[in-house]
Structure formats: C-alpha cells, structure tokens
C-alpha cells in the first residue's frame, strides 16, 4: 500500500510540483525561525550566573566635569550609601553594568594558547551585589592585591579554553605584557550579562582603578519603596555636587534587553505563521479539487475492495508523501547550515530545528488533509462511479 502510494506520487510529481515547492519553502522558513528560537531558548534555560533583581544602577552625568573629579568624594559617598539600612551592598563598576555594559575584548595568552575574552571592571563588592557564586578561588579583595600581577576572575568557559583540566588558580596570563601580567584568583560559572537570551561567552573581571568612579551598583533590600529612590538620589547629589544623578533598576534594564529578542521572535513567528497558513489554504483547495476530479477513482477503489478508512488514508497518505518529497529536498538544504557552520550555532540546535520543523509540517499537512479526505471517504461508491 505504502509502496504504491510512493510510486503513484512519484509518477505524478510534476502535477504536484507547485505544492512541493510551497511546502519546501515553508519548511526552510520554519527551519530558519526554529533555529533562531531554539538557540535563544537554549540560552534562556542556562543559569544567568548572577542575581540582579534588587540592584539599582546609579549613573553620574555632568558634561563639564573632568574625568576622575569624583574620586575625592568616592570614599565618603560609598560610606554614606552603606549606612542606609535599606542598602545591603554598594559596588563601583566601570563597565560591568548587566543588560547593557560596554563591550571590550582582549586576547589572553597562556603559553601557546591564545583566547579572546570580554572583560569587565568591578571592585571587591561586585560579587556580593550581584550574588555571583564562585566555583574556585575567591573574588579580589585587599589580600589579592599584588603589585606584580593584576588579579583576575575568569568564567568557566574561559577557564576550560585556557587551561583545560589544569588548575586555574594562580596561573599567570599575558606574561609579556608591558604593564602587570594577570594572575587568576577565582573562577565563576556563567555571567550572561546581556540578558536572559544572551549566549555564554568568555568573560573575565579585573579590579576597577582605585580612584575611578563612573557607575555604582547598589543592592537594596527587597522591601524598599520608591521613596527611598528619591532619598538615595538626594544623598548622592549632595556629595557629587554638580552632577546629575540617574537611578535605574536592573529589572527594567533586563526587560528592555529581553524585548530585543522577544519582539523579533514574535514578528518572525507571525510572518512564518501567515506564510504557512497560506500554504495550508492552497493545500486545502488543491485537495478539494483533486477529490472532485477523482470520484471515478474513488468508486473504482471502493469496488476493488478499499474500505472508507483506506480511501481517507489514500488521500491523507498522498499529501503526506508530497510533504515527504518536499521535506527531503528541504533537509538537503537545511543540513548545509550545520555542515558549513554558517551562523556559528551548535549543530544540536540545527538538528533540533530540522526535527521540529519536520514535525510541524507533517502535523499541519496532516490536519488539513484530514477533512477533505474524510469527506472523500464518505462518497457513496455507486455515486462516485455514476459521476463520470
């Protein structure tokens, strides 16, 4: 039965070429969209590596101020902020503002191994403010300060790329550097600073310069009210005279960052949905026309011993076979992406995207073949034969 079905559809493939092409393109579009969504989802389910829910960012803005002019007030300012009962910790950061830090990269060398990594500057409190768990060593503090070496914290991914299975703590990086070479003092897990959909990448932290103060991260108690924001802002303004203070919540920044993925995802899915809906309408129309043209055949098959079920199965099966032809063609193109490593996504993501797209196409095609085929099976054989 299945063999004859394939033979029949193979012999009549030219009549169905339009449909095959439509399904083929739907598959490719779906595959593209699914690759994107599955890769985003794969990122989404990874741990963030930090906790920013009750963290506020304090920005200082003053066009006229010279850089570093706040350094004299730094000590005083941090002490004042920490005295607030509502504040757990405060940290000074140069560029390590989650959900929107600046992007600096540098190459790290360990013997023959050279690896690029993004880097951030933070101070001793950074770990506490963002609740970053360390898997090895410790965060930098007074004791890790070393005139000869710049202490750095690296993330797990970077650790694996640089040292493999060797111990990481105490390793020296970039020994030929003009300034201080780096010394690994701690290892963290993830740090997906860009948001819930941010992919893992190589990251290291180095201590922020002693006098520098460009941004603060303040971890507040979960119970604080909006009034406290005004109070904090006023206090800081009082110390940082001439500066404009702006306070932003990390939860809001996180939402904004996530929307950069959510919104295109929704647009992609909608466009893809419309496209596939069109194909399905076309398929539906073709099936109806097909069944009306083939009443004689329906009657003949019934006369030869086909049950109603088998007639319905015949028509559903034919469409499934057409879909199979289109999907074989589609898979041939889709597998080029992992083979040629086009967008640098993991192979597993492409494979999942192919499988999901195949299932979706079969499901939709099956659903829309079902009703016309079921109607075809209900045509009385005598009437089907009479129609010709």
């Amino acid at each position, binding site marked *: *039965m299945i*063999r*004859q079905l394939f*033979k*029949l559809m193979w*012999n*009549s493939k030219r*009549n169905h070429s339009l449909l095959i092409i439509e399904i083929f393109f739907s598959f490719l579009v779906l595959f593209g969209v699914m690759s994107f969504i599955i890769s985003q989802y794969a990122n989404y389910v990874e741990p963030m590596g930090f906790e920013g829910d009750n963290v506020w960012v304090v920005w200082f803005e003053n066009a006229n101020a010279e850089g570093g002019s706040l350094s004299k007030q730094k000590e005083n300012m941090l002490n004042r902020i920490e005295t607030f009962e509502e504040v757990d910790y405060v940290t000074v950061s140069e560029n390590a503002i989650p959900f929107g830090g600046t992007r600096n990269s540098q190459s790290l060398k360990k013997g023959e191994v050279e690896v690029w990594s993004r880097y951030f500057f933070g101070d001793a409190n950074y770990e506490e403010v963002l609740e970053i768990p360390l898997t090895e060593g410790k965060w930098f503090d007074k004791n890790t300060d070393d005139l000869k070496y710049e202490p750095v914290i690296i993330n797990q991914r970077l650790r694996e790329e640089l040292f493999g299975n060797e111990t990481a703590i105490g390793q020296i990086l970039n020994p030929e550097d003009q300034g201080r070479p780096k010394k690994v003092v701690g290892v963290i897990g993830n740090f997906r600073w860009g948001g819930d959909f941010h992919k893992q990448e190589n990251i290291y932290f180095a201590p922020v310069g002693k006098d520098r103060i460009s941004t603060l991260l303040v971890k507040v108690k979960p119970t604080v009210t909006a009034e406290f924001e005004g109070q904090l802002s006023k206090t800081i303004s009082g110390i940082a005279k001439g500066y404009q203070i702006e306070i932003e919540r990390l939860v809001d920044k996180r939402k904004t960052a996530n929307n950069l993925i959510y919104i295109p995802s929704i647009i992609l899915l909608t466009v893809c949905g419309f496209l596939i809906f069109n194909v399905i309408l076309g398929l539906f129309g073709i099936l109806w026309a097909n069944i009306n043209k083939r009443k*004689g*055949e329906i*009657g*003949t*098959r*019934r*006369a*030869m*011993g*086909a*049950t*109603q*079920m*088998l007639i319905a199965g015949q028509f559903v099966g034919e469409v499934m076979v057409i879909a199979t032809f289109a999907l074989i063609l589609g898979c041939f193109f889709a597998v080029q992406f992992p083979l040629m490593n086009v967008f640098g996504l993991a192979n597993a993501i492409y494979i999942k995207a192919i499988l999901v797209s195949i299932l979706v196409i079969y499901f939709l095609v099956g659903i829309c073949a079902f009703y016309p085929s079921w109607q075809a099976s209900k045509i*009385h*054989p*005598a009437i089907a*034969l*009479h129609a*010709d």
Partner: protein
Amino acid sequence: MINLQNIEKVYRTKTIETVALNNINLSVEKGEFLSIMGPSGCGKSTLLNIIGLLDEPSEGQVQIAGSDFKKHSDKQLAAFRNQNIGFIFQSFHLINDLSVIDNVELPLIYRKSTAKQRRELAAAALEKVGLANRMKHFPSQLSGGQKQRVAIARAIVGRPALILADEPTGNLDSVMGNEIMDILLNLNQQDNATVVMVTHDENMAKRTNRLVRLFDGMQVQ
C-alpha cells in the same frame, strides 16, 4: 451464485422520487454468462451496483455466493468485494499515474499479499488478456481496447468467482469490442467465472447464455 428477490431501488431527493428498479427477481447460476439490456436510464447500472454490493436496494433481498447482505459493515462488504467480485466499467477507470502492472495490482493491495505475489499474479493476468508486453506502459500510451484489457486484467487478478461488466464495449469500436467479448467468453468458459454484463449491443448479447431486458426499472424478459 446470485439470487435477487423483490428488489426495489428508489432514489429520493427533496423534490423528486426516481424508481430505478421495481420488483426485480433474478437468479444467476454459477458459471453462467448473463447479459442485461435496456434503454438508457432503465436501471441497468443500478442493478449491477446492487449485485456488486456497491449500493443497497431500498427493498428486497440480495444473496451472492450464498451470503445474505443485511447490516454488513463497510469493512465486511469491502473484503467480500475484494475476494469475490471483479468490476469492469465502460470508461475503464484506470489510474493514469500508475503503470499498467501497478494498475492491475490494485485489488491485491487491499488484501494480504507480498510484493512478489502481486507482481506474479498481475503478470499472469496481463498475459491472459494479451498485454504481457505492455506492463511498464502507462494508460495514456494505450488504445481504448488495450485499456479495457488492462481493466479486465485488474478485475480478474484476484481470481473472483463473479465478474460484473457495465457496458465494457460501450466506448470501443466493433473490432476492439469483439476482442473484449472474446476475452470475457474465454474467462467464462475456461475459468468457469460467472459473468454479468450490461450491454447495448444485440450481437454481444447473443453470444451470452441468457439475456435479461429491463424497461423503466422493470424486468420485461
């Protein structure tokens, strides 16, 4: 082989009631070759469809090969047709996208069989109708007479005891028609198949064992 009692068939729509068959009593012995004649619209096809279990009578009893047909499921009827009845139609009803041999195999895919068995049986059936050299052709490459011979091969491939032919020569010229008739007679005489044939052609009817004439749904001879 066939026993029909008081068969009545009425087609009803909202506005019209058509009596297609009225009080038909007919019995056909095993091995008989019966022809049915009558003007267009007199109910010949309806009668053949009832004998072939493609349609149910409004009234009366149908008995085929010793079985009564009341309240049979779609599945049982399909299996019975598949095992016992071969159909031949005026317009051949071949599937254009299947090769000759695949067309002939059609009834066999609706029963338990292996690909090898199907091939062998289909080849034997085509041999019988003289088309062994056309197996890989497609219907569009055949003449009308050849198409009908393929249809006959398809009807006999499952070795049915009963062959029902509805104007099998109606679309053919007399030469081709006679060829078809020869094949049917041969099946009747050599293989002892029971044949019921609807025809418009007196000459064809004369070559059969018995003739039944219908007029306006009634048996007149």
